[in-house]
């Protein structure tokens, strides 16, 4: 995926680009390989989260009241805010890729940095939310406290909440890491309109992380908000 081509030397020209690795014949082939590789990687990610989603789905059907009750303890405004932030970061990411495609180096860097900043905002909010959970003893395990009659099953919800959002946050941290490297590369002028695969691949990854959240938000925060 992206790091496979990460060592690329820049300022190329169409005929024999410096970023072309020895075992590929053409830049086209190299780019197609990276793209396919990234998509196959995302495919594994879909199934990775798929297992978790099934566990969630099953218990939500079984213990709907407990899930509704537990979900109401989540802060909907923070959740919605974070959704907006993450979608915003997807926008900036898409624009970063576009700038790379059109060879606007400083715009690329600017959009990438915006994406990183938004990603960090998201993670910051997540920290606040987690802290709140610890404070209210909503972390499943021996210290879990809940007044509701569904205390036991609420732990299922919170276990899934922490696992799902935790893995999602982990993906974001990795994403921010990757993005920092790419920003640095972009600032160094390693990309041009013939070679911007790393930016594009990082973008695909980032959008995927966004996709996961698009589902997590309603599933975790909005189980049953009326009444």
């Amino acid at each position: 995926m992206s790091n496979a081509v990460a060592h690329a030397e820049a300022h190329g020209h169409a005929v024999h680009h410096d970023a072309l690795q020895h075992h590929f014949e053409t830049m086209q082939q190299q780019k197609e390989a990276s793209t396919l590789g990234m998509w196959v990687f995302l495919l594994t990610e879909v199934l990775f989260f798929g297992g978790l989603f099934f566990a969630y789905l099953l218990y939500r059907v079984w213990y709907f009241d407990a899930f509704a009750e537990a979900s109401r303890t989540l802060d909907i405004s923070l959740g919605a805010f974070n959704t907006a932030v993450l979608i915003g970061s997807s926008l900036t990411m898409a624009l970063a890729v576009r700038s790379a495609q059109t060879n606007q180096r400083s715009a690329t860097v600017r959009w990438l940095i915006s994406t990183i900043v938004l990603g960090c905002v998201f993670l910051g909010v997540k920290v606040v939310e987690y802290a709140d959970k610890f404070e209210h003893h909503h972390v499943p395990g021996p210290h879990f406290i809940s007044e509701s009659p569904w205390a036991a099953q609420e732990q299922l919800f919170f276990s899934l909440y922490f696992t799902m959002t935790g893995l999602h946050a982990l993906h974001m941290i990795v994403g921010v890491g990757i993005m920092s490297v790419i920003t640095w590369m972009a600032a160094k002028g390693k990309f041009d309109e013939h070679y911007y695969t790393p930016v594009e691949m990082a973008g695909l990854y980032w959008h995927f992380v966004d996709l996961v959240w698009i589902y997590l938000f309603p599933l975790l925060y909005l189980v049953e908000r009326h009444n």
Partner: protein
Amino acid sequence: MLDTLKLPERHYLNNGHGLKSWLLTKDHKRIAIMYLISISVMFLIGGLFAAAVRVELMTPEGDLFLADTYNKMFTMHGVVMVFFFLIPSTPAVLGNFLIPPMIGAKDLAFPRINLLSLYLLWVGAAFFFYALFAGGVDTGWTFYTPFSSSASNSNVVPTALGAFISGFSSILTGLNFIVTIHRMRAPGLTWFRLPLFVWAHYATSLIQVLGTPVVAITIVMVAVERMFGFAIFDPVRGGDPVLFQHLFWFYSHPAVYIMILPAMGVISEVVSTFSRKTIFGYSFVAFSSLAIAVFGFLVWAHHLFVAGISTYSAMVFSFLSFAVAIPSAVKTFNWAATLYKGAISFETPMLYAYGFFGLFLIGGLTGLFLATLGVDIHVHDTYFVVAHFHYIMVGGAIMGYLGGLHFWWPKLTGRMYSEFFSRISAILVFVGFNLTFFPQFMLGYMGMPRRYHAYPDEFQVLNIMSSAGAAVLGVGYLLPVLYFLWSLKRGEVAGPNPWGASGLEWQMPSPPPTENFKEQPVVHGEPYEYTPHVAREANLV
């Protein structure tokens, strides 16, 4: 004729010396060799655990080891053999080495990722060894909850993380193969000109990338439950322990095809080469690999027939399990038909292929017993199941792997091994194998449960036969280590194409240069062309 052959002056093995030139290599061939060494070590370790199991089972009483020790022995035997030996075996060694040359490429699409996946296997193994030296693990290779998540007090988390990490190694290998096969084929090499070995690996890779992530997340769920006291499968807090089994087998059933498909690919190559004939029904064999990969995902709950799943879904899963047997049947029949009117010779790889036929047939057909609901209720979790999967995994998959290793050894090293000893070993493995595992079918139907440290007296005779067989089998497996090592220095120089095979990989010198081909090869013909004309060109006459 062979005396005139010389090793090429420059090849991948002498292109760079010292540890660093190996550890930092991006050459798929060197990575394959490192895999070969790693998994051979793991196989010996797994085999030693098996030996311990067999020695304990010679007497009905649990007298040699404590029950806990015994439980750890078979658990670590299963974990090592499945996650650290058999899943990486054929793909990571032979596939890694051969797929690029077979499709006329210089390397895999992502050489660094290839190296990374080797490192991940090592890291995973390191976790496993940590667990081993910290006292081992006793959950069985299946890690069933709630035993693994709350009852066991052994090193579940490090072992599970070891399996998790080696799973990533497997995902990355599969990803690399998929991209390579899609994007790196030589001009003229259309899909239907690909060697069946490549088809088999393509199907394998699909399973690796689609299945492994699910077991990864399942392991994560067990780990958070164990480490943080979360509740996901915990029945006390309303979780469903059987959900774990669903998720686990969603991966682990397809995973058994990760183990067998590459071996099937090897068999296709070997059978064609040693009968000098094109594969009968090429496209059926090719598509049956894909069919196995896809259908393989539909049948997992046949491991759960008595685990409290609904009667209806048991019906569906049983039905689909029969469906997944059909493509295997198609393959078997096509291999047999390939032999018809061939020009067959019986060098060691072909002996292994014949061994594969016999053992895979028995293993596969006993899979039908297990897929049959009424019978599975009786034999589930007995030695019948143990015998079934050893027939396929040891009889089928390892016979295929060893056959492939003998077949391509001259390509890997440039030298031949001792034909005499290799035949002896092939025969020992076959005989020892049957002696070890056939009695287990009878034990299973008699009702002897698996994972038993002590058992009622009436089972002893068959158990002694099995243990005796294991000793023969152990010798059979040890021999190749010796003659392969011997061949590295003393073996006859093999030349580029000692078997007169038709694949692209045989057009490289043996051992091949780092870049495989000097010029990008262009493919004009069909695979498996064995006409008298081709035979002459390959210096067969």
